[in-house]
């Protein structure tokens, strides 16, 4: 086991993990962070997206030992943020959620985009969301929800 310390949703956490443990499993099984979903587990679907030091990454594609000393944010913690709340309400109002399995990943990626820049176009949104798959909505409403957040 390797002792790892990192900041999770603003709080310092310490956890002993196996070197071959991925962040996705540590978050779900050791730390109870259930917004982070298991999907393809090969870096394609995006439902396990979290922020590491503000950048969106796939938690299935990073070892937990690699986030030692870093900052990890998920929906649970981002919910404290006003911009994130606006984004969530827009998703609800625009019907950008159907089955909901992909939603945490989309919210996290979209939040990272809005944090970076606010002068974004529909194309910027599509580019940023390339790494998140949704099989229900056809993306249209997700993009509308993000545009709506900017205009609010």
């Amino acid at each position, binding site marked *: 086991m390797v002792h790892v310390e990192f900041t999770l949703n603003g709080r310092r956490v310490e956890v002993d993990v196996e*070197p*071959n443990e*991925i962040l996705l*499993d540590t978050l779900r099984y050791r730390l109870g962070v259930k917004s982070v979903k298991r999907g393809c587990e090969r870096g394609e679907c995006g439902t396990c997206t979290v922020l590491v030091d503000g950048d969106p990454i796939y938690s299935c594609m*990073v070892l937990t030992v*690699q986030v030692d000393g870093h900052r990890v944010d998920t929906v649970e913690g981002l919910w404290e943020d006003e911009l994130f709340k606006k984004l969530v309400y827009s998703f609800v109002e625009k019907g950008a959620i159907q089955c909901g399995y992909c939603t945490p990943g989309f919210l996290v990626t979209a939040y990272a985009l809005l944090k970076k820049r606010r002068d974004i176009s529909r194309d910027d949104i599509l580019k940023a969301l390339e790494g998140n798959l949704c099989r229900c909505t056809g993306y249209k409403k997700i993009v509308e929800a993000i545009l709506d957040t900017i205009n609010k």
Partner: protein
Amino acid sequence: MFYNIPRFSYHKPSNLDEALELLDRLGDAKIIAGGTDLLIDLRIGRYSPRNIIDINRVKELKYIVDEGEYIRIGALTRLQEIIESKVIKEKIPLLHEAVYQMASWQIRSRGTIGGNLCNASPAADTAPPLLVLEAKLKLVSIDGERIVDIRDFFKGPRETVLRHNELLKEIIVPVYHGYGYSYLKLGRRNSFTLSIVSVATMVRVEDGVFSDVRIALGSVAPTPVRAHSVEKYLKDRGVSMEVIREGVELVVNDISPITDVRASAEYRRSMSIVLTYDSIVTSLKRIGIEVGGG
């Protein structure tokens, strides 16, 4: 908890000397940088190293330095940092264009340019542009440094000239002026699937004649390759649609595609011709020359 990545010993050196010492001493080891290729390879059992050396704390491998006539890029530079770099966008726009089309934001936030090259996938997106840019790679071990041309770096699928105790330290990319360029790729969808074929092109034209043509393709041979037959045919010929059409047919002499889950060899051959044509035409457009036709 279920682990589908085999067990290994984990090492996290805090500087380059420590990393090189570990690499030399441990023998059976793999380096992890971004990990976006390696974790998949570990899951499917392509590699099962006893040791993993995590170089993410080796910050001295992370930089983009503008030296005027050339740019030095540290191997640990993330793909997203390459896209966001003003220096790269202005001085090596071809590399910017290729990395911009790579993978997804999540993968680019982790994956590194060094990892993309050292993993040596025939489909590595940074390889064709660096091949036509004629980049040099600085390799380092406890025995010292050496520089190799990128054209000599790849030996086969997942094989490079890196010795067991060597690490890619830096990519040195010359800056060019007056060239048209383009990177095109054909995949089964836009983002992050491996390409069926990709083409990087650089062209220079003087008095209506091709004075320099450089073309490299990915995913159509055991390693990324230069299309020397096409380059040789076009060089010193006048620029016209007919000449380009004749030239690109020769690309089949430079490639040796295979049939796999993504496409058949025959389709890859046909698409290599089409994409090479498009890539040359797009490059010419960028220096104000229209030859038309698609």
